[in-house]
């Protein structure tokens, strides 16, 4: 038997596979395709203090081996998530989930995290300081180490669960931001969010996305994400959740070898709703082939 279970700051996951925020809704649609209780955990759609419609459509564009989105954090607001979504989730998912929080001011982040206190089916808080699809706030917190530190400090103070900060790749040095979060008490780092990108419709001679720019995700970004996780592992001591372009079991292994304790899978869920199930089923065999009996042994292996 290969051990697949990993530990994220006290939260034990039966395996390191977590669907990423914004690519899994609240899990409901997927629970109609398979029993999602096999997942290590799952990350809910990004939540803000107030409900948001997000950006105008088109919000989706395609690219070679990937996609762009400019959803712009559409969500029903923290109150609705607490009162309704988190309650309904219990009917089809019995483990703790990860709550992804976004904001436009330090106070908004703080408010949302405070609102999640005492809710026992939230196991971890992922603070998104990296959304490229909103005008102010969002990513600007993630591109300035001082702002990143400020948000981290404020939410860590009010959180009753581990706080992981999700970083943007749209910076010169991601390790600088991560170190700022680590020093203010973040329990872990999630990397990466989407890369700022755009497409033009050549027939209309206009940008495809109504928002003009969007975030690139999918297999196209995997090598970028992997490189950043590798750099982060060298510079910080807290656990890393590796995100970006994972599409197959080999990618999971690579990401963990670069330094991730667990991984999130985003866009692939949208085109193959069974991808997480498939990868979870393939993981033990893959590790056995590599002669590994405990998945934790490969974390950071590429650094040794």
């Amino acid at each position, binding site marked *: 038997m290969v051990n697949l279970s990993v530990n994220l700051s006290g939260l034990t996951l039966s395996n390191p596979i977590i669907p990423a925020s914004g690519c899994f*809704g609240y899990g409901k*649609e997927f629970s109609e395709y398979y029993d999602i209780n096999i997942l290590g955990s799952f990350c809910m759609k990004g939540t803000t203090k107030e409900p948001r419609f997000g950006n105008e459509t088109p*919000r*989706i564009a395609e690219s070679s*081996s990937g*996609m762009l*989105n400019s*959803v712009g954090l559409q969500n029903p607001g923290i109150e609705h998530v607490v009162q309704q979504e988190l309650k309904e989730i219990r009917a089809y998912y019995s483990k703790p989930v990860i709550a992804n929080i976004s904001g436009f001011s330090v106070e908004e982040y703080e408010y949302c995290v405070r609102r999640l206190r005492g809710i026992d089916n939230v196991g971890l808080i992922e603070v998104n300081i990296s959304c490229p699809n909103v005008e102010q706030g969002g990513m600007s917190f993630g591109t300035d180490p001082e702002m990143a530190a400020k948000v981290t400090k404020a939410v860590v103070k009010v959180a009753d669960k581990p706080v992981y900060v999700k970083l943007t790749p749209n910076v010169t040095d991601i390790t600088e931001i991560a170190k700022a979060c680590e020093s203010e008490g973040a329990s872990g780092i999630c990397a990466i969010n989407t890369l700022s990108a755009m497409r033009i419709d050549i027939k209309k001679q206009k940008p*495809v996305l109504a928002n003009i720019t969007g975030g690139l995700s999918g297999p196209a970004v995997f090598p970028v994400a992997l490189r950043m996780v590798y750099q982060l592992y060298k510079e910080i001591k807290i656990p890393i959740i590796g995100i970006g372009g994972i599409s197959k079991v080999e990618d999971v292994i690579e990401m963990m070898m670069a330094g991730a304790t667990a991984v999130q899978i985003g866009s692939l869920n949208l085109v193959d*709703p069974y991808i997480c199930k498939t990868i979870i089923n393939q993981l033990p065999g893959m590790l056995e082939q590599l002669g590994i009996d405990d998945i934790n042994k490969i974390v950071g292996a590429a650094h040794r």
Partner: protein
Amino acid sequence: MGIYTIESIRQLTYDTYEMTLSGDMSWIKAPGQFVNIKIDGFFLRRPLSVCDIDDRYMTLIFKVAGEGTKALSMMKVSSQLDILCGLGNGYDINVSISEPLLIGGGCGVPPLYYLAKTLKNKGITPSVVLGFNKKEDVFYEDKFKALGCNVCVCTVDGSYGYIGLVTDIMDMFDYDYTFSCGPEGMLKAIYDKSIVSGQFSFEERMGCGFGACMGCTCKTKYGYKRICKDGPVLFKEEILW
């Protein structure tokens, strides 16, 4: 999700193809639903409406609009496709109507065929208005006629049937309800012109097609709706333009 086998592929016009597939049809519950097709070499799936279905076969009709649909048109009979089936709400036919008018424009025509068939099975024979740009684009007029429907075709340039837009000829029929599918401009014109209630099928660029990504959301009078999951069919009473 499932694997479907291409049973036939037939060219209907210079740029429009009819494809029949075999596989598990139990996912499809209503006319107006769509499928989302994985095409080799493309990251996102391509949504297409269900044009017809029986227990074993499904018919799709698609126009070559870009690279993805072009690749699809070149697929060979007996090759297989990975398809997410039975997506979206579809048309609600349990509304009290006696003389429905079906209005389709271009690649909005396909879902109306299975809708016409379903209504027919309920004992209601709909009238049908089909709009195309020009004579070379026209397809399925005979298929609707074979169902016993009163069919009127119009083309924008007048090269076939009546000249003009669907809204120019829809009042040739008596109707108490409309079911429509086509470009948004056409839907809006029907909405403005008709004084009766109806259902309108919309298109939007999609990330997933099954309600997970919020890529396709629109505003309605009753809140935000995902075209792929809460649509693609919206009731006239809820639409905000």
